[in-house]
């Protein structure tokens, strides 16, 4: 009687361990797709954006979407283009372009940036991120 119970206990423990292992595997097998479902890789990483030159008037700023965030293209002088991220480096608000002063102004805490991105005043700790610009025919290739 005791023998049978002992043998049973051993078998039970062994099977229990197997059960635990396979269950953990199953939980992972279902958990992984759920995680990926909720956190898909952003499409557009490393993708360049093309903007038509005619959309960027001289002395004005053209805002567009770049890899999921707002960015800005400037043409301060004819043929000269600057591309910057429009996300303020202080706390993430989007900067506005003030054409009459030739500066970027952040409405959240009055941060100021020059047209090349350097900080002119206010709380921002770093300049606006600079983006690469390549001219291609009548388009500008950013990134």
């Amino acid at each position, binding site marked *: 009687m005791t023998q049978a119970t002992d043998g049973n206990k051993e078998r039970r423990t062994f099977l229990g361990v*197997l*059960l635990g292992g*396979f269950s953990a595997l*199953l939980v992972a097998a279902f958990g992984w797709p759920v995680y990926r479902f909720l956190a898909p890789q952003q499409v557009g990483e490393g993708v360049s954006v093309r903007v038509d030159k005619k959309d960027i008037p001289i002395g004005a700023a053209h805002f567009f979407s770049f890899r999921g965030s707002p960015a800005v293209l400037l043409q301060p002088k004819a043929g000269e283009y600057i591309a910057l991220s429009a996300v303020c480096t202080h706390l993430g608000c989007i900067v506005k372009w003030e054409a009459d002063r030739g500066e970027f102004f952040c409405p959240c805490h009055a941060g100021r940036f020059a047209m090349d991105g350097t900080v002119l005043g206010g709380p921002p700790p770093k300049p606006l991120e600079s983006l690469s610009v390549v001219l291609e025919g009548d388009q500008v290739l950013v990134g």
Partner: protein
Amino acid sequence: MMTLMVRNIGALIVVFLLAGSGFSAALAAESVCLQCHAGLEGRLAAPVAAWDSSIHAQNGISCPDCHGGDPTDFAMAMDPERGFVGVPGHGEIPEFCGRCHVGVKEDYFDSGHGRALHSGGPQCVTCHGNHAVQTASLALINREDCSRCHEYGRAEEIKAAMLDTDRLLAGIQSDLDGLAKTGIRVREMEGETFALRNDFHRLFHTVDVERVREQTAAFQQRGGEIRTEIEAVQEELTTRKLLGAGAAGLLFLVSVICFLIRKTYRDEE
């Protein structure tokens, strides 16, 4: 003579394809054309059933789209004032069909067939029928039909030249249908295949073997690209099935283990 031939082919097609095609007739809100003609006899009623089995009916193209007239008004249904053009004569048919099938019309008039139109040569209805029109296929090029006017040899050459590409495109089409039924996004590929197939079928109407052979390479290449895309999708689907088999296997294994554990308790109960 031709009407008889057309009617025979049409009847054959109708006999084979009459199953389950009723709804399109219903959806056309039963035009007065169908309502009236269905109740007539003999050759005046025949077009209704014939059209019903056609590819035109499946795509919502009905009587007034070709013949004009007013489908909502019994009195004015066949009035020229409402655009009714009646039954086109033998020589008028290519223009008639060519109002929509423009590319084919151009190639046709460019060809030997087109040039022979007014001396008893073939036109659209000769091969495709008039009301029971089906999707074009290579089967329309056959000894029986083509040797009505000349020896089959040249037609056979063109058919052979087109066979491989036709198979490729038909294969792609059916694979895409299969994928669509599993929810895979195939709309772009389907559109391209449809355009490709149309261009390809249009090509025949020039009845010029050299042209066909020249252009075959381009079709094969583009078709090949689509096929590669499809194969990538199918590979992904196979991977999914493998993972699924693994997961199911694990679950059944867990079930068995649980039953075994249950047995150890059973022995003690």
